[in-house]
């Protein structure tokens, strides 16, 4: 983004970190406002009467009216928005249209399971893809071993193209039902994490493998690497000291972009494995047309994504201050 005024420009030169953090904080705030507003708007914008839809067509009219009053849907929109924000500030996410339980309790009970799933999956992605992509580049650099390269490209293309929920279904059918290696559904101990994490991690891993390989090949083509090669260092030193660090920075930037999508992907995967997380709660409430829970899930997942984005940006800025801050 270009600098708006000369004064801001001067500030950016002298205190790049301050300007960088401020910009990111402003962006985060604006995005959070969008999420909150979208979540507020959802139940008010859905076609038809969400309350009646949730309670069923044969619900008595006075029950529907009472529910509407309880949700504050009988006030004007500005008043509703104010009330919504007030409740949100107190951690009150409303009550479920179907069960009548506070949504905040549901979120509190289920969010950790989702986050754990996402974090584990992301860790798997990094652990496999970073060294794997580097090795793939080492193995196929400069047109060496074209067959291996073709195999790598084809395999990662198919894996990257496999949707997580399809993979989840396949894994359930193959490893859980047919071979009985892992539990089919639910969270009943460490072994039940294997399949959901695998389903979530495979596609991003394939994507990141390709990215890391390409980034490594780019590094290999640089002048500074030619200069390093002129020293004829042992292969290990050359790769670990001169190639890997550069590859890592570029790859981590792109890996950070995969994380929000991975969080969103938990919704589908959790549904397959009946995982007690926020995603499956969302999937169930979509089916039950329980919009109070859906909007809370959107709010929680959306905010989680934004906060993760923010943290990834900060981490990258710490890792490679010059390039990131210059771009702010």
């Amino acid at each position, binding site marked *: 983004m*270009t600098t708006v005024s000369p004064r801001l420009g001067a500030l950016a030169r002298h205190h790049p970190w301050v300007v960088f953090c401020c910009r990111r904080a402003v962006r985060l705030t604006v995005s959070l406002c969008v999420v909150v507003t979208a979540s507020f708007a959802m139940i008010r914008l859905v076609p038809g009467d969400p309350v009646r839809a949730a309670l069923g067509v044969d619900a008595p009219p006075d029950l529907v009216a009472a529910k509407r009053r309880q949700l504050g849907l009988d006030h004007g929109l500005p008043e509703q928005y104010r009330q919504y924000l007030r409740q949100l500030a107190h951690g009150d996410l409303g009550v479920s249209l179907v069960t009548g339980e506070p949504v905040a309790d549901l979120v509190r009970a289920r969010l950790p399971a989702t986050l754990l799933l996402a974090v584990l999956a992301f860790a798997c992605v990094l652990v496999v893809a970073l060294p794997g992509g580097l090795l793939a580049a080492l193995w196929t650099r400069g*047109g060496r071993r074209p067959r291996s390269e073709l195999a790598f490209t084809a395999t990662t293309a198919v894996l990257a193209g496999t*949707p997580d929920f399809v993979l989840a279904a396949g894994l359930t059918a193959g490893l859980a039902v047919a071979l009985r290696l892992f539990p089919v559904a639910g969270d009943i101990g460490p072994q039940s994490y294997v399949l959901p994490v695998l389903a979530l991690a495979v596609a991003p891993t394939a994507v990141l493998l390709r990215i890391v390989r390409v980034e490594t090949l780019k590094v290999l083509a640089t*002048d500074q690497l030619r200069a390093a090669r002129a020293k004829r260092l042992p292969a290990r030193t050359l790769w670990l*000291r*001169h190639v890997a660090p550069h590859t890592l920075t570029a790859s981590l930037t792109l890996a950070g972009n995969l994380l929000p999508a991975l969080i*969103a992907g938990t919704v589908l995967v959790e549904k397959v494995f009946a995982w007690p997380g926020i995603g499956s709660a969302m999937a169930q409430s979509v089916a039950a047309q329980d919009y109070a829970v859906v909007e809370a899930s959107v709010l929680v997942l959306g905010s989680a994504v934004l906060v993760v984005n923010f943290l990834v940006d900060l981490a990258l800025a710490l890792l490679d201050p010059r390039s990131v801050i210059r771009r702010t």
Partner: protein
Amino acid sequence: MVLSSLSPSASRAAPGRTRASRPGWASPMGVITLAMLGSLAVLAVAGALSWGRAADRPDPSAVLRGPTADHLLGTDHLGRDLLARLLSATWLSLLPAVAATLLGAAAGITLGALTAVVGGRARRLLGALINLLLAFPALLVAMFFAALFGAGAGGAVGALAVACAPGFARITQTLAAQVAGTDFMAAARVLGLRRHRLLLRHVLPHIAEPLMLSTTVAAGSALVALSGLSFLGLGVQPPSYDWGLLLSQGLDRVYTEPLPAVAPGIAIVYAAVAFQLLGEVLAGAAGRRTRPHPEEEPGARPARAGRPASADHVLEVEDLRVVLPTTDGVIRPVRGVTLALRRGEMVGLVGESGSGKSLTALALADLLPDGARATWATHRFLGADAESSSRKERRGRLATGMAMIFQNPASAFNPSLRIGTQMTEAVRAHRGTPRAEAVEQALVQLRRVALPGGRRLLRSRPFQLSGGQRQRVAIAAASMMRPDLVIADEPTTALDVTVQRQIMELLRRVRRDDATAILFISHDIALVADACDRVLVMYGGTVVENLPARELAVGARHPYTRMLVASVPDLAADRDRPLPTIEGGPPDPFGAAPGCAFHDRCPHRLDRCAVESPVLSPLGPGHEVACWGPLPSAPRPGRNETEEAEK
């Protein structure tokens, strides 16, 4: 992949395309892609017609059956044949995906292209808006809007279009920004073209190709996302069905019967991969224009001209050739270079850009870029033949005996490593010098190149130094090993003139102190004449003249050398007369034409020059020339010029 690739920007970053994996239509991958797409198209059209009725026919007597001969995939809870349902669901799975992609692409491209033609403030606002929208994963946005629009195929298509629009907007914005910066856009703006005309006539046509590519990739992701929405119950609603819904229904009974869940999954992956392959093939076809030909050329390898090894020589090379495959065929940048360097000798290698100087240097150092191949008749370094020693021995000899200094000191260092590490790593790796001792040696070398700062400098990183300082560090690092030969590839070209002089002085000192031979590569003939003992003049990939530097000004016998010398201005030059230049352009790098490479620019050419290429042959003591009609030595009055040049 449903998560990341819904936004085209993510998927564009994803495919790791390199030369070898870039397929065209005729490649096996292209054929496979066409076959997969064709089968999908046929199924989409014929599926509903041929199997539609069977798919909707309930059979109460065969409810929830497993796979049998009649029902290959089994039946559902109403006894309907699942295979028929799977096949006839093709069009309802593909069509909405394509529609959603096109809608999203239209909206996103419009939004992104607007950024190229609106004013500064509006552009910033649009950019911020796109950034904001991109912060959310497309799948989440799609789920939100699908819930908002109401469950159903129409709502899902709209939601998906909204979700993938920001990705398209970002790509278009990036591409359009590149177009907006071009000269013809500036010209069009000066001409006062209206904005929508600018957009339609000048911006969009230039970015159409990459946009089509992203649309293809996005269509595959949209298919997957739509299936995901249906799977969640937000997409196609019963009694209608698509693959996502079939998968969802199959999953309910996966405990007893895995096939009804797996088969729709395979269908989804099949279609997604088909679209992705299409993207790769399209990209390959687009990249074809810039792709090097892989064809190999049998390197001409003339018989060995067995000169005996000389103990005095550090490096001897005969008939060195380099071939380099490129877009338009194989080029031969180096076509038979013969040179020898004695211990402690400083030899200049001069020639215009593209004459093959740098590739000669890289071939000598065994650092050619991937794809380039070198051949030679003799290649002897420190008395050992390249052929007669193992690769490991050769590497070891090059590691301790040869050092390189590169043209651009800004890119010759690893930006993230400390100077100290980069100076000491070679000597620690090859000599096994302990760290402390290596640091002491580095300090000595830094003092020698007159760099103050000592240990503080060793702790700094390359970007904290100026260009001149970095080149001094490069020289200090090169001398760490006390090599027998330093190859300096235009080490002063990127520096200003005063620094240039200091660097030359340092190189001379390295040679004097350590008896290191230096191959000094430059296009600056005056600098070379000034600094070197001997000059090799390169033209069209061969050495055309080899002569003592002091004879350069008056003793050059090759017409090209003569013209090169004449084109250097000196203080005595008549300012009213234009400087002499060499007519014509450099030789065709592909040409395998017989004859002297210089003959079409040569004012003294003979008939023989066009048919037979001259070889480097001795003309006098320490003087060789490759020319059929070497010019006579210049008349003595040129003596003043000699002195001028020597200064």
